[in-house]
């Protein structure tokens, strides 16, 4: 379980995210949605201890993310941000191999190799594993990054807008692979999403944020309502019943 208690981040005297108090249970996919500047990424990066917390505390699986050594946290949660730029040229397999660093400390054992292969296969990158990242398309590269955090083999996986810059096909593939990661591998996935319809279809819980605080938190059925979405996104939203569940129409 991820537990946030009175978490706050002060960017300036009048720009502040929080206080946020929420519990995200283990298992399944939890989607963070909301308008730009609502604090989705801030909350996610604070859970992933990439950003200092100004007030409050965050516990992941009973471990305080600030006080627990970073090494230990790296075996409990993994986080992937949007921008990934490396100075070195890496193949897919080398990148995924870095996901084992919390266990191997750089010396990959046969066991590590086994998990690296599995993560690569899981994201259908088997054919591409010896290709360099700069020879891949954006969607393939995104999958390689996700394979790296899956190889890290943590119970909790945090992803910051993994669908950014992905076309329809790759976005759907990515989400169904994350769905598999949650269902088959038992990972707890927390994901920042921009498209409310993706969130509604693929996630188990939706956490809607607005102006730095939590506006709504519930199952997709509870969130996918005209009045709720209209309030959260400051836009007139109409929810219709589509062939595969509720669809938000906002244009």
């Amino acid at each position, binding site marked *: 379980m991820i537990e946030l208690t009175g978490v706050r981040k002060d960017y300036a005297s009048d720009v502040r995210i929080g206080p946020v108090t929420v519990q995200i249970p283990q298992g399944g996919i939890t989607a963070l949605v909301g308008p730009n500047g609502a604090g989705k990424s801030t909350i996610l990066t604070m859970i992933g201890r990439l950003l200092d917390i100004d007030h409050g505390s965050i516990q992941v699986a009973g471990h305080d993310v600030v006080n627990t050594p970073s090494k230990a946290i790296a075996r409990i949660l993994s986080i992937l941000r949007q921008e990934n730029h490396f100075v070195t040229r890496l193949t897919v397999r080398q990148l995924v191999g*870095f996901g084992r660093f*919390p266990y191997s400390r750089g010396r990959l054992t046969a*066991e590590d190799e086994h*998990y*690296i292969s*599995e993560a690569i*296969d*899981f994201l259908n990158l088997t054919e591409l594993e*010896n290709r360099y990242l700069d020879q891949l398309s954006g969607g393939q590269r995104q999958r390689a990054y996700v394979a790296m955090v899956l190889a890290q083999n943590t119970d909790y996986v945090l992803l910051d807008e993994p669908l950014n810059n992905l076309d329809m096909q790759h976005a759907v593939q990515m989400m169904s692979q994350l769905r598999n990661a949650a269902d088959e591998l*038992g990972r707890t996935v927390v994901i920042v999403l921009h498209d409310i319809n993706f969130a509604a279809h693929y996630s188990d819980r939706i956490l809607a944020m607005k102006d730095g605080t939590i506006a709504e938190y519930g199952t997709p059925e509870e969130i996918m309502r005209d009045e709720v979405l209209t309030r959260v996104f400051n836009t007139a939203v109409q929810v219709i019943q589509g062939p595969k569940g509720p669809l938000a129409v906002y244009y």
Partner: protein
Amino acid sequence: MTIQPHARTAHRSASADTGGIAGRTGMSTAGSGQVTAGVPPLARRRRTLLPLLSGRRQSGPFSDARHLRTYALVMTVLVVLAIGFTVAIMTWNNPMPFGSEGYWTIAGMRRDSLLTIGVVALCHAMATIAFQTAVGNRIITPGIMGFGSLYTAIQTALVYLFGVPAAAMLVGVTPFLLQTVAMLLLATMLYTWLLSGRFSNVHIMLLVGVVIGGTLGSLSNFMQRMLTPSEFDVLTARLFGNISNARADYLPYAIPIALAVTVVLWLWAPKLNVLSLGKTAALNLGLNHKRALIVVLMLVSILIAMATALVGPMMFLGFLSAMLAYQFADTYSHRLLFPMGFLFGYTILAAAYFTLRHVWNAGGAVTIVVELVGGIVFLVFLLRKGRL
């Protein structure tokens, strides 16, 4: 077999240290049939010495067998060249008859020059590669942080304030160590201050380094204009990188220190590999990014201080050897990059020194030649390959 996601707690603790996808969940193969296919049991999987040649799926610093062969070939050529130039410098054109006392005296002086070349190449190659990894940029060098300028400023200030006798003051083990400590202190202060608190940003640190370097450079320039011609002459002789004129009495201190730092960087190589992925990825993998950065930058400042005190500022050598190592090794692994960078540095310096001093009898201009020839080689190579 399928284990329910929420019934994994006990299993998790049992395999917390080595846990893997299948190990933890029993990996239902219904949804993704290829996941476990073809993976032999863990107990029977062994590492082979040359996994790439055996065709097995294995990660490593080389992407394929051809890559491995290229690396081995380049290293072999470099080792042969390095040994060749070493032997040539030691034996070429020694005027005394072999075996006489004078022969060994000359050979001893040449040995000191070679040791200096070795230390300088080691310091610059290691420092530049580690620095570029730490700051995530392969174009800037430690020189940008004002190390060379600080050295110049200290030397110039002493000559300016105390005249030519100060040039004598600058020679000796104590000033050498003091100068090293001064450079180390500056670096430590700068890095810890700039990387903690609200400015925790590598780019701001670099910018401040550039400004400090520029300020110190102008200050030195200003003082140099006020010197008498004879003072200026003495100072210039000190400031130009000069291997044949290197202070051999520093070597007993410089060699162990440089080697110690090299060993530390070697042991840290896996962390440097992770550091090269950038801040967020390094943090995600459990590396204390800020602390690692400060440690690496301090080690770099020690190396640069050593090399600078021995032969003066010589920043392009590090850039060149690092860049050539990146191009030829083409790997993330610092344990492969460091030796190649060192060998490139050593070969380039030794070749320039041998050609200038023993073939053309023009000992002083080694750095100038390194920069000229090295720069051209680098440009040609880069233009042909088309990427950094």
